[in-house]
C-alpha cells in the first residue's frame, strides 16, 4: 500500500506549486482551466439533469465524431474552426435524432439515446478508417486535450498585446456565453425543464428552447473536450448539480453552488494529482466523487445519515 499512496508531503503538495512567480502562473492556468470547465459544464448540466437527460452529454460527446471526420475530409486539415463547426453540427443533429426517435416512434428516451449515439460513433469510426492510412487521425488526437498542457498551448495576441492562452480564452468565452444566456432566459429554461405542460400553455417555444440548450451543450462539450479531455467533461455535467441537490432544493441555489464546487474540484484535484502523481483530470473527478459521497451522506436534503438522525430525533 505504501507504493500506492506515497507519503503526503505537505510542503511539496500544497506550497511548491505556488512558490515562484513562474510556477504560480503555470499552475494557476491549470487550476483556472479546471474551474472554468467545471463551472460551465456544471451550469449547463443543472438544466440537463433536471430534464432527465443526464447522459445526453455522453451521447453528444460520442456523436460529434462523424462531424469531426467530415470536417477533416472537407478541409484536409486539423484547423480548429471547421472542426468546431463540424462537431457542433453533428452534436446538434445527434440530439435532434434522439428527440425525434423518442417522440415519433414507440422507443423510450434511453433506448433512443443509446441507439443514436452508438450509430453516430460507429459512423465516425467508419469514416476515419475509410480516410485511409493517415498516421494519427483519431478522436483522441483530433480533439481530446489534456488539462496539464494548458500552459503550453499557444497564446492569442491582439496586435502586439498578448491576451492569454487559447484554450483558456475559448472556455472563458463559453462560460460567459452560458452565464449570460442562463441569466437572460432563466425563466424559460426553468419552466421548460420542469413542467412541459405548463410551458406549452404559457405559449413558450419549447422546441426552440430545447434545441438552443442542446446547441449550448454541444458548444460547451466541444470547447472543453478540446482543452481537457473526455472524462472531466462528462463527469462535470452531472456531478455539481446532483451534489448540490442534497443541499438545496431551488434551482438558483443549485446554480450558484457550481461556483464553490468547481473551485473545490479543481484545487482538490490538482493537489490530489500532485500527491499521488497521477492524471489531473482523473483526480478532479475523484474529488467530485468524494464531494458527492459527503453530500449523499450528510446533505440536509435527503442525506442518508441526516435522515437517520432526524428519524431518531422524531421518535
Amino acid at each position, binding site marked *: 500500500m505504501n507504493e500506492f499512496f506515497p507519503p503526503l508531503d505537505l510542503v511539496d503538495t500544497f506550497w511548491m506549486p505556488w512558490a515562484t512567480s513562474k510556477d504560480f502562473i503555470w499552475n494557476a492556468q491549470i487550476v483556472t482551466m479546471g474551474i472554468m470547465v467545471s463551472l460551465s459544464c456544471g451550469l449547463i448540466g443543472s438544466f440537463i439533469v433536471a430534464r432527465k437527460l443526464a447522459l445526453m452529454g455522453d451521447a453528444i460527446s460520442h456523436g460529434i465524431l462523424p462531424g469531426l471526420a467530415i470536417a477533416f475530409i472537407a478541409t484536409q486539415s486539423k484547423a480548429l474552426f471547421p472542426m468546431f463547426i463540424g462537431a457542433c453540427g453533428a452534436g446538434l443533429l445527434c440530439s435532434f435524432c434522439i428527440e425525434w426517435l423518442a417522440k415519433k416512434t414507440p422507443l423510450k428516451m434511453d433506448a433512443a439515446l443509446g441507439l443514436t449515439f452508438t450509430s453516430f460513433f460507429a459512423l465516425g469510426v467508419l469514416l476515419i478508417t475509410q480516410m485511409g492510412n493517415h498516421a494519427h487521425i483519431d478522436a483522441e488526437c483530433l480533439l481530446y486535450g489534456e488539462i496539464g498542457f494548458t500552459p503550453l498551448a499557444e497564446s492569442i495576441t491582439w496586435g502586439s498585446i498578448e491576451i492569454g492562452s487559447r484554450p483558456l480564452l475559448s472556455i472563458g468565452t463559453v462560460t460567459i456565453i452560458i452565464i449570460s444566456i442562463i441569466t437572460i432566459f432563466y425563466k424559460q429554461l426553468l419552466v421548460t425543464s420542469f413542467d412541459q405542460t405548463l410551458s406549452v400553455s404559457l405559449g413558450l417555444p419549447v422546441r426552440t428552447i430545447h434545441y438552443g440548450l442542446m446547441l449550448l451543450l454541444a458548444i460547451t462539450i466541444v470547447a472543453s473536450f478540446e482543452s481537457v479531455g473526455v472524462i472531466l467533461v462528462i463527469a462535470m455535467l452531472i456531478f455539481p448539480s446532483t451534489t448540490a441537490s442534497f443541499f438545496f*432544493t431551488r434551482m438558483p441555489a443549485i446554480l450558484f453552488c457550481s461556483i464553490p464546487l468547481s473551485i473545490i474540484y479543481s484545487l482538490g484535484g490538482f493537489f490530489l494529482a*500532485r500527491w499521488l502523481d497521477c492524471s489531473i483530470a482523473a483526480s478532479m473527478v475523484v474529488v467530485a466523487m468524494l464531494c458527492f459521497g459527503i453530500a449523499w451522506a450528510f446533505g440536509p436534503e435527503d442525506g442518508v445519515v441526516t435522515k437517520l438522525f432526524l428519524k431518531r430525533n422524531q421518535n
Partner: protein
Amino acid sequence: MHSIMSSNKFSSIFTPIKLFLYSTVLACLLVTISCDQRATDNQDSFDNEKSHIVVTTTHMRDLVEKITGNRFRITALMGPGVDPHIYKPTSKDILALSKADIVIFHGMMLEGRLTEALANGKKRGILTFDATAALPNDQIIFPGEHTEDNKHPDPHVWFDPKIWSSVAKEFTQMISHFDPAEKNLYATNLQSFTDEILLIENWALEQMDSIPKSQKKLITSHDAFQYFGRAMGLEVVALQGVSTTTEAGLGDRANLVDLIKAQNIPAIFVESSVNPDAIKEIASECKVTIGGELFSDALGSKEHSSVGPQGRIFPANTWSGMMVHNITTIVKALSENPK
C-alpha cells in the same frame, strides 16, 4: 434531483450566502496552513546547480545522456514500455515540464498531443527542440505516399542507424550552441556514440545474412519497423497502422493471415509496448511461433541486456541494447526452418 420539491429545517443552515462564508473560511484556513509550511521550508529541492533537460521518449533519453554525459539533470517523461502514441502525462510530468530549461521531443507526432503542445511551447517562451525537424524529406518514409496526402511522416526513425546518427548530430549542434563551454566534450561524446551506432549497424547487417532470403519477412503488431526493414533489408508487414491508436480492420487481419500461410513465414513478433493478444491469436491461427518480444516504441529496462558485437553486453535501456536485442531475436526466429 429527487429532492427538488421536498424541504426541511436543515436547509436554513445552508443558504447560499452562508455556504459561501463557510467556503471562504475554509479557503483562508488552507492558505494559512500552507503559509506556515512555507516558513519552515528553506531548502528548495528543485533549485539545482545543473540545468534541467526534459526528454519525452526513452530513445531520446538515451541519446541525450550519451551526448551530454552528466552535465545536465535529465528527466524522461516516458518510462520503459510506455507507448508514446497513447501516453498520458501525470502531475509530476507536468511539473517537470514547467521546471525544464530545455525540452527535447521526438516530433513527427510520435507523442501525439504532446508533440503539438510542445511545438506551441516555443511560442510561449519555453526552449524546445524538435529532434527530427531537420531530417531531409528524402530519408523519411511517408506511409500514404501513393495517395495525395503525404503530410504524415512515419516517426519511427530511430530504427535507421544512419538517421539516428544524424539526429544525434543535430542535437549536438543545438546543445553546443546552448552550452558552448563544453563544446569539445559534446563533440567527443558524439564521436563515440556514432562509432557505436556504426559498429552495431555493421554487426547487424552481418547477422541478417544468416536468414534465408525467402524468409526475410518481419511481421509485427504495429507498423513501427519500416525504417528497420529498409536499413536491414527485411520486408515489413504489420497488423496495425503507424499509430497504435488505429484499430486493425478485419480485412487487414485476414490479409495478414493469408500472407503468413502463403509465404511459409516461420515466426511473427510481439512488441513490448503494444498489447500482444491480437498477434498471439494470429500466431495460433496460422500455427507459427511467436519469435519473441521486440522493442519498438519504447526501450526496455536496465535489468535486461543482450550480448552484441565483440561480445560486449548492451543493456536494453539504451539504443544499442534495443537494436542488439531486436536483431538477435529476429535472426534467431527467422533463420529456423518453417515447419
